[in-house]
């Protein structure tokens, strides 16, 4: 066994030295947002130069729900065209059978990553994907406007609601008719599950389905949180927010038309880009807390990983690509250019990153306390759980019933879906 591995190691190093005698044509899918695709291309160019492989990027829609449907279809059909997939943190249990086990290939590097992230990508002892970056959202706020109106950064959602309303009304009176108070992800898709889970958790309303599989969503605190969010639509958030994903909400925010914005850290470097009207005028804070006994600031755990399809025709080269994309060097570049949170603990103490993207070291504790979506307890049914949850929330936001009514229906639907004692 050991000798075999040694041989493989020797052989791979030989091929590396020879310079891609085994060169392969690889394809990677990516639904990255903002400048993510351009960044990926730049990294792949380096990989191509180092290994002699050729890598084609297949662009995908940015909505994670849209991507998932397509990937699931491709993988079920045994598609050999795509070698490497970028996977959302919640997909591992649902797609585990279709990806290669990376534990052997990555055994030297897994120790660098946060154990919780590696654990989230391990299904029945199989390492399904290697982490590329992790995600925990931030409350983006316009520091110039808060100073102008002499307001502190809101610590609770109620405070945010009041501050947003006051500044929005003040700015509109001053002639900026386009001004809104708060934009977030309100379309009926996975993004709304993330946003709404934060509201519910921050009010002490649990996390939809608890780790032991029990359905906890139908409770007064959860209803209170979602009712507050419903009150934003048409007041501090535009009605169009009901159709916004990450990029649409960032559009409103980055044009300078919103006081507050909920988004992932990637919006930080884009907001400070050379062509951004709000560059230097904003800052980030942890998301506000709710009120009630267990109120806290809650951030949904996100993050993207690199998985290798078991139908790949060049699995060895594809694994190399996965290792490369999750490596410390690429994660550092990613942090510097894209303000994506690294999954390698050491990078949070990196001086370059702290200087260019101060959000990253500041976000270490936030992502470590982030709330996972219930993908582990609900397993293959997670997508449907999430869909039922976001539909109930979207109905409430659209004014179609109160949160209490919709959550009661949701609880009944989830109980049906669960079927028996276990998911």
């Amino acid at each position: 066994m050991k000798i075999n591995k040694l041989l493989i190691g020797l052989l791979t190093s030989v091929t590396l030295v020879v310079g891609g005698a085994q060169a392969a044509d690889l394809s990677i899918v990516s639904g990255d947002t903002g400048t993510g695709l351009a960044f990926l291309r730049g990294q792949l160019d380096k990989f191509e130069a180092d290994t002699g492989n050729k890598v084609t990027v297949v662009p995908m829609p940015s909505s994670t729900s849209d991507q998932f449907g397509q990937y699931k279809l491709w993988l079920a059909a045994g598609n050999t065209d795509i070698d490497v997939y970028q996977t959302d943190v919640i997909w591992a249990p649902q797609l585990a059978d279709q990806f290669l086990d990376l534990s052997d290939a990555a055994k030297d590097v897994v120790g660098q990553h946060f154990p919780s992230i590696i654990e989230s990508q391990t299904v029945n002892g199989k390492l399904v994907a290697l982490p590329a970056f992790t995600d925990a959202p931030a409350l983006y706020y316009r520091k110039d406007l808060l100073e102008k109106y002499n307001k502190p950064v809101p610590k609770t959602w109620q405070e945010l609601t009041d501050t947003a309303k006051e500044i929005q009304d003040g700015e509109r009176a001053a002639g900026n008719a386009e001004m809104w108070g708060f934009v977030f992800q309100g379309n009926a898709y996975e993004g709304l599950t993330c946003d709404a889970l934060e509201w519910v958790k921050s009010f002490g309303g649990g996390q939809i389905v608890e780790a032991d599989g029990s359905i906890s969503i139908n409770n007064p605190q959860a209803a209170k949180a979602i009712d507050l969010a419903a009150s934003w639509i048409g007041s501090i958030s535009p009605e169009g927010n009901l159709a916004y994903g990450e990029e649409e909400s960032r559009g409103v925010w980055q044009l300078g038309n919103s006081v507050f914005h909920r988004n992932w850290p990637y919006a930080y470097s884009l907001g400070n880009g050379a062509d951004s009207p709000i560059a230097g005028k904003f800052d980030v804070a942890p998301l506000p807390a709710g009120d009630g006994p267990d109120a806290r600031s809650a951030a949904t755990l996100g993050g993207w990983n690199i998985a290798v399809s078991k139908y790949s025709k060049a699995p060895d080269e594809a694994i190399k690509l996965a290792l490369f994309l999750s490596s410390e060097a690429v994660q550092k570049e990613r942090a510097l250019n894209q303000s994506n949170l690294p999954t390698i603990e050491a990078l949070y103490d990196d001086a370059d990153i702290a200087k260019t993207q101060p959000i990253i070291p500041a976000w270490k504790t936030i992502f470590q306390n982030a709330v996972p979506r219930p993908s582990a307890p609900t397993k293959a049914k997670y997508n449907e759980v999430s869909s039922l949850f976001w539909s109930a929330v979207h109905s409430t936001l659209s004014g179609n019933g109160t949160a209490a009514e919709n959550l009661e229906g949701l609880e009944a639907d989830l109980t049906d879906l669960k079927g028996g004692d276990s998911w």
Partner: protein
Amino acid sequence: MATDTLAPSAAVTAPKIKSELMQQRARAARIFLVPMLIALAVVAGWPLIRSIYFSFTDASLSNLDGAQWIGFGNYLRWTTLDSGAVRYRGLLADPAWWNAVWNTVRFAFISVSFEAVLGMIVALVLNAEFRGRGLVRAAILIPWAIPTIVSARMWSWMLNDQFGILNDLGMRLGLLSQKVAWTATADTAMTAVLVVDIWKTTPFMALLILAGLQMIPKDIYEAAEIDGVHPIKQFWKITLPLVRPALMVAIIFRLLDALRIFDLIYVLTPNSSATKTMSVMARENLFDFDKFSYGSAMSTMLFLIIALLTILYIWLGQVRFDGGDR
């Protein structure tokens, strides 16, 4: 009318001819049909039968081969609780599904009605003689020629609440007091989809009706003209009855299309119950959720509902596909 008396006599005499030559022709026709029938069986028949088969199993997308036969469980099943109450489950007892059916049927009915009326008007205009008619005829086909995904994306930008040109125009002209989120709110989302669909498919309708209009002999109008029949009466008494076969066929094409609407709704509106159609729901269950068999049951029902509505339409509208009428 001339066509009315001619058509039946031709239909009656046709089967009587039993010459060697005709039989040979019929045989040749059958041979020529074989490749098309085989192609249809492979690309349409086989997938259809497979979908129907899967709807009676417990298949999931990751385990299609291990599917077990479960009978009608995906359609309707029931359990009797300890209290004696009976709980119905399955597609036929799923309110979300019937909501989607209602959304689809309502969408199809409204869009096809508007398209028929507008298509008729456009066809009548294009049937008149005027300079540059060829150019206008080509230009009017553009919305139909653009792929649906592209036009849906285009419209979703035009309808966008913050950056959309429609809101901008409306605000500048003073028609809107504030920007409207056309595709996002439940009240306007269906209307927005209808507008885009009507914009896109009216040219198709117009083209088919125009072909029918051009078949009407000019001398009928000349005779009516001499008798002093008012143009509006001419339309109701001459044009409409004579163009009816073409119109009915055009409507059936559009109806089939509208009942399986997917792309416009998927791209344009949030995935909410206000606009979810049968196809959108079937796709979601087939691929997003781990319920391939349930999605197959939806596809099968979709097929049956479309078949049923088409048969009803042909029967009630007394449509004949050989170009004759009644």
